[in-house]
């Protein structure tokens, strides 16, 4: 049974790789961007789910960590000439003026920077609970955004950074997403994952069982901010431009939507929801522009797309709390069981 499963998993991975190759060949640049965005949202969704879903801490500060990651990576990879062009109001700080790193180390450092900030914030914030925690993390992410808007010589302030090299391609975005998925699965199967889940279920009981609750919370928060930073960096290099307004609460809301829709506390659910939400966001753009039905033209209503998304979040939380997967995970055994059940029922 176990061998069969690993063969199946291997086949699945090969299939996914072939699919990536195929999409890489056939998609035009617009579809390619959406495809990459899916992968980035998988990374971001998983990192938020680690804190909100598995550890049971309600954090709303994701956009802040993404901003840290995106800015770090951008400042490290931009060429000196490009920096001079960007910083025309005030010159950039001298120690950053001549750095031009390759993508990989810059990506790692941006993740680490976000993790360090996350670690520093975790120490005071994680003493709080529930809604206080939510509002405090939201506060920190706003503070980060305001600081980035005002440090003209470090981040170019409200003007943002333009002309980021487009490093993010299928291999980077989906590679990072795959690594994140594998990491999360390994983490959740190990003792740390079990400890995190027990904290989610009952903090006091977990403490009584000898789990160092605070330490585990800090670890979970730091790892989450690490991946958020990397996701932010990838996003910056996909879009080619970043500015502080990008990292408003709305961004956190999108990721929260993915986590809730997929099932709070399910890796599989987050992956599926990330793809569904990202694709839907693009497909529903149709609503914002006019649709020609031949007989009559339905006038598009700009902004209706976001109304639908917020209504979707409300509907899921009001009527279908489990989301797509609840806390379940995908496995070959459960899939086989389900298939057999369908076969037994037979065609009607």
């Amino acid at each position: 049974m176990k061998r069969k499963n690993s063969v199946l998993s291997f086949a699945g991975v090969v299939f996914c790789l072939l699919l990536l190759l195929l999409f890489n060949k056939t998609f035009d640049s617009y579809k390619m961007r959406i495809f990459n965005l899916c992968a980035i949202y998988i990374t971001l969704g998983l990192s938020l789910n680690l804190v909100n879903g598995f550890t049971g801490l309600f954090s709303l500060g994701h956009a802040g960590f993404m901003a840290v990651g995106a800015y770090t990576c951008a400042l490290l990879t931009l060429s000196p000439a490009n920096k001079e062009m960007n910083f025309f109001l005030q010159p950039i700080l001298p120690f950053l003026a001549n750095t031009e790193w390759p993508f990989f180390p810059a990506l790692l450092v941006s993740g680490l920077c976000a993790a360090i900030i996350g670690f520093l914030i975790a120490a005071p914030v994680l003493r709080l609970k529930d809604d206080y925690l939510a509002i405090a993390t939201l506060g920190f992410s706003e503070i980060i955004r305001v600081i980035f808007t005002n440090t003209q010589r470090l981040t170019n302030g409200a003007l943002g950074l333009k002309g980021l090299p487009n490093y993010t391609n299928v291999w980077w975005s989906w590679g990072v997403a795959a690594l994140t998925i594998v990491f999360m699965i390994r983490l959740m199967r190990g003792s740390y994952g079990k400890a995190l889940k027990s904290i989610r279920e009952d903090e006091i009981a977990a403490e009584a069982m000898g789990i160092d609750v605070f330490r585990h919370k800090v670890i979970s928060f730091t790892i989450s901010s690490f991946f958020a930073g990397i996701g932010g960096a990838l996003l910056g290099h996909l879009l080619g431009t970043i500015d502080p307004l990008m990292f408003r609460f709305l961004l956190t809301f999108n990721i929260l939507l993915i986590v809730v829709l997929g099932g709070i506390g399910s890796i599989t659910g987050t992956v599926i929801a990330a793809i569904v939400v990202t694709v839907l966001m693009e497909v529903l753009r149709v609503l914002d522009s006019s649709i020609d039905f031949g007989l009559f033209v339905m006038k598009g209503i700009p902004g209706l797309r976001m109304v639908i998304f917020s209504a979707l979040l409300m509907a899921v939380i009001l009527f279908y709390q489990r989301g797509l997967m609840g806390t379940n995970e995908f496995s070959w055994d459960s899939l086989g069981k389900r298939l057999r059940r369908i076969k037994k029922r037979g065609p009607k």
Partner: protein
Amino acid sequence: MSIQIFFQHLANAISLGSLYALIAIGYTMVYGILRLINFAHGDIFMIGAYFTFYLVTMFLMPWGVAFIVAAGLTCMFGIAVERVAYRPLRDYPRISVMISAIGASFFIENLAIVIFGGRPKAFPVPDIFGKVIHLGTVSIVSVTFIIPIITLIFLFILLFIINKTKTGMAMRAVSTDYEAARLMAIDVNKIISITFGIGSFLAAVGGIMWGLKYPQLLPLMGLMPGLKCFIAAVVGGIGNIKGAVLGGFILGLSEIMIIAFLPSLTGYRDAFAFILLIIILLVRPSGLLGQSQMEKV
């Protein structure tokens, strides 16, 4: 800084503080009863201002009537939000209710963008509120004086309702112990609706006065004041009405005064409230006037 300019800043700070106080009361009342951050409260505030705008410009109501009707409509709107978004989740974990609140807030904002349009609208300011009053060398717009007065009036009415009427007693009972209040035959759902109604009414009053003071309406105008007023409620001690007023004044005063005395920090104005929040949560999590609660197993 000359003394005239200082007084001008002070007057501004007091009126901003009283606006914050009015909105913070709504947060604190809802939190006191439901233990829920009503994320949609800032948007109810926005809706109140827009209702007034449409009543005056489209239905051509005189402003006095429009203010009252708009506040009434907003009050019903707040009750409706509670019915749809919070009541079905009464017995669910707090996190679910909070996600629902965030969803409701975004839904209202986006709906407002679709219905009202994203372009800013000019709030119709009646002449009495725009008059410039000269006191010696200090000149102040009359609305700056009117706002704190109206806030005080509503504060006294509210305190009267809560401390002297039967409904107020029921509200206090529900906020002290939800289950016990239900056992004492208090219609908890009705009380919660009334609480949301009062909170939304005050938010609408705040929204109208905000419009009189800063006459530009935007669908997202409730976002920042909403968050800041929640912070004001936390600073004063959440669940405590006097605390919310105190917190609102502290926040308004310090925001204006910091900019007045240290103009180089102007860009950090929006971050200040959050810094205050984090300091308060670390030093005195129950707020200035709040009582600390032990966690029960």
